[in-house]
């Protein structure tokens, strides 16, 4: 909060859906193609072209709607939103207006240990525009329509966020959800996720909303927090001086770290919405909804709760494992392959969390499980385990095979160990005497010696026990 003012923030987030073709035509979709190489008559808005809607876009949108608990409309409609801009070939965008695909829903945001359900207003389908590249010299722009027609969903929250931190956390959760559900890469720099923020201030304790300004062009994650903070401060300054905030659109300038007024929102941006006559109403039956619902993976929050509850994993570990669905799935797969339940959870988690890039790991989950078993049964020591892991990662070979091939099995034969211990003691009489005279820390030295003599394969616990026994049965008084 900024003095006597409480910020109220609503976010409109556009998510680019990772379909293979565009929303309303079969032109290929995908980042990075040469300019204007992903166009067809529909994308170019050639005279006589007509839209046909992509089923894949609907499925992805439904996934998010269901994951957020939104109400899915049985009948929704596409509408035309009109404005003139070079990257909008038809002179209108196909979007949804009165009858969006999803109403309501929530996104869980966790801050400072407590969780809150942020209310969504709606989620709707629309198509992306192309790219307008302003040329240096300010006289011309170049237009690339590769991106035109790519499907988007717009996720609109209620004005239900009350700080820049909350807003940033909301974005993070939404992004994670989009990646989790395979909707989108969620990369803001690539434009896969775009954020407009509506920010207003009101007197602390008031329930009315203040005049809001819309912030656009927030094009990376770190700017979400920064830009909103800046806007809150800007409005607070105005209100503190007794002025009024103008309802307007402001562009974030990430280079200068300030926002500029773009236009007054009151100046008619009359989009002249009307139902698109080329597209009959979109009917979504219960069967489709249930099929998509059944195909949803266990969501991050539910998975973390299950791990904490059933497996006793710590909050921290659970969070880290759930940061990426590939990692979370890996963990669950390794746990399942192990079959030993909660007891194996922590060791498996440790191995996976220790990976530099768990999502790209070359170690199979079943092998992770195997390695954990080998250590927990004492077949190999923990130390050996680390060596074996390194080799697994390099070659993809199974741990048991590596252990056998390199003869890394932990030595636990008491007879052999006793012999090695006796040798070590005999070889270092001074240290033995010091130990007996009252330097218990020297046990470590002797354990080290025995490990050297056994190529690191001796069971350190057993060695420790045997050494203590031998060092004391040699008649020392302690």
């Amino acid at each position, binding site marked *: 909060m900024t003095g006597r003012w409480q910020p109220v923030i609503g976010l409109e987030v556009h998510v680019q859906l990772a379909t293979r073709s565009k929303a309303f035509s079969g032109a290929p979709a995908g980042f990075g193609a040469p300019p204007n190489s992903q166009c067809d*008559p529909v994308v*170019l*808005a*050639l*005279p*006589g*072209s*007509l*839209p*046909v*809607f992509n089923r894949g876009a609907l499925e992805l949108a439904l996934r998010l709607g269901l994951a957020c608990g939104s109400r899915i409309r049985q009948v929704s409609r596409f509408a*035309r939103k*009109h404005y*003139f801009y*070079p990257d909008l*070939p*038809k*002179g*209108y965008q196909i979007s949804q207006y009165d009858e969006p695909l999803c109403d309501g829903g929530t996104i869980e945001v966790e801050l400072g240990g407590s969780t809150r359900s942020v209310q969504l207003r709606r989620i709707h389908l629309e198509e992306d525009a192309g790219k307008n590249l302003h040329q240096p010299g300010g*006289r011309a*722009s170049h*237009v690339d329509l590769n991106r035109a027609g790519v499907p988007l969903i717009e996720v609109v929250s209620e004005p239900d966020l009350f700080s820049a931190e909350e807003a940033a956390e909301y974005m993070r959760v939404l992004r994670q959800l989009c990646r989790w559900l395979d909707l989108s890469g969620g990369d803001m720099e690539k434009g896969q996720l775009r954020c407009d923020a509506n920010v207003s201030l009101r007197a602390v304790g008031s329930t009315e909303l203040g005049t809001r300004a819309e912030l656009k062009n927030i094009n990376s994650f770190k700017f979400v927090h920064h830009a909103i903070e800046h806007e809150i401060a800007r409005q607070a300054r105005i209100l503190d001086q007794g002025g009024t905030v103008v309802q307007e659109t402001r562009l974030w300038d990430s280079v200068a770290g300030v926002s500029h007024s773009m236009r007054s929102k009151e100046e*008619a941006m*009359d*989009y*002249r*919405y*009307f139902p698109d*006559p*080329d*597209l*009959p109403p979109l009917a979504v039956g219960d069967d489709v909804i249930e099929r998509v619902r059944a195909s949803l993976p266990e969501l991050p929050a539910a998975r973390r709760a299950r791990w904490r509850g059933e497996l006793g994993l710590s909050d921290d570990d659970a969070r880290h494992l759930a940061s990426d669905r590939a990692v979370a799935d890996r963990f669950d797969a390794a746990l399942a392959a192990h079959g030993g339940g909660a007891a194996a959870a922590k060791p498996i988690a440790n191995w996976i969390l220790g990976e530099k890039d768990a999502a790209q790991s070359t170690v199979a989950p079943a092998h992770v499980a195997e390695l954990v078993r080998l250590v927990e049964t004492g077949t190999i020591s923990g130390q050996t385990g680390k060596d074996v892991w390194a080799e697994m990662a390099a070659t993809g070979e199974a741990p048991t095979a590596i252990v056998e091939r390199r003869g890394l099995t932990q030595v636990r034969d008491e007879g052999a160990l006793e012999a090695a211990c006796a040798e070590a003691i005999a070889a270092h009489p001074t240290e033995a005497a010091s130990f007996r005279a009252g330097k218990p820390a020297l046990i470590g030295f002797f354990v080290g010696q025995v490990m050297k003599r056994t190529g690191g394969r001796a069971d350190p616990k057993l060695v420790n026990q045997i050494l203590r026994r031998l060092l004391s049965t040699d008649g020392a008084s302690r």
Partner: protein
Amino acid sequence: MSEPLHYLPATELARRVRARELSALELLRATLDRIGAADPHLGAFLHVDADGAERQAAAVDQALARRDDPGPLAGVPIALKDVIVTGGVPTTAGSRILAGWVPPASYSATVVERLRAAGAVLVGKLNLDEFAMGSSNENSAFHPVRNPWDLERVPGGSSGGAAAAVAAGLCAGALGTDTGGSIRQPAALCGVVGLKPTYGRVPRYGVVAFASSLDQVGPLARTVGDAALLFEAIAGFDPRDSTSIQEPAPRLADALTRGARGLRIGRPRELELPGVDLEVTAAVDAALDVLTHLGATVTDVSLPHAAYWLPAYYLVAPAEASSNLARYDGVRYGMRAGPPEQSLNDMYARTRGAGFGAEVKRRIMLGTFALRSGYYDAYYRKAQQVRALIARDHERAFAEVDLIATPTSPTPAFRLGEKTQDPVTMYLTDVFTMGAPLAGLPAISVPCGFTPEGLPVGLQLTARALDEATLLRAAAAYEQATDHGLRHPPEQNLAGEGRA
């Protein structure tokens, strides 16, 4: 038949070509000769694609030589209203804003692909009112079309070029488009058959959009049989058009010989209007007498909201048009106006200001107005509600009758310049034709006589949704009982130096 080649029906031409009595190339040459001689008087064509047509005709003849089946329209010369996109062949929509645009070779309208697959030879693109907006073909950006029956008069619109060309034997058939009457009204004024199918029957993919919820492609031809043949070739589901219906194509061969016995025909009492030419009324009355003699019954029906067809149409159509024409902006194709150093908004405004003609601008303005926030509910939305009532009127009427009959046009062909002073005067020429598109229903105009001055009159029949068969049935029965179709425009209008 003693008819010259250029007046033979398409069905007969196809028969001769398939029987190898006539080669497609010969037929094409005769057609091009006829166009060359007569079109300077009419101005019906915007582009003649002689090379492309020759290739198509040659392919038909080669297929026949191999004993392959080139299709039911083998060798038949057909022309296309210039809102129908033809890959590699200029397409202008009758507008300066698209002058010079040549669609990519791989992009043609579905109806074009279907005609080609049926063996038709597509000879060229026909003149029209700009963006299909008009009722006289005086709104073409290039030049008007003249009515072959009287060169001082209009052929009707917006498919004026198509009607004139078919009437004068410049092609055996044509495809036009109908949004408020643009196939039927020119067909009536030029004495040919014009069919507007049920909405969704014929795919709109590749047809320059005017009003998306009203536009339909349909045939203009000299006989009902020809209209049926063309309709069968182009109708049917297209996955590229989301408004294309999936009903199976109708069986029309039966319809053409079934006769009119038992058909119930209704005359809407609300459309007994003053201002309809007495000669038109007389011809239509006589036509209905013929149908009665053939065994049909004619009664009264009610279409209570008929007075609201015009206001509903002139809000819905321009609104959708203002949206569909937003893409003509000088960025990706077509004309761009203004100096290079202008701003973007100036570029848009100058391009569209210079590229669109007066009627198109008028409708874009009207449509933009109707969709404006604050006006949308009272104008566009209200019009769509009234439209629902108009559709309901028709449904109720069709509980009592099988066909609804009116004149197609309140007057025969009027003089060039006669109705251009006041837009509403022009709009009123569509007073009978707007109902069918608003309700999504099929309708046909058939020649039903001539005025004493020798100007054609058309009878309009409207049927239930998907019931083109009944339209063709009645039209065919009437045609067989009369001989209007055997009369052709005065040949002296089409000879000598042209002045179109």
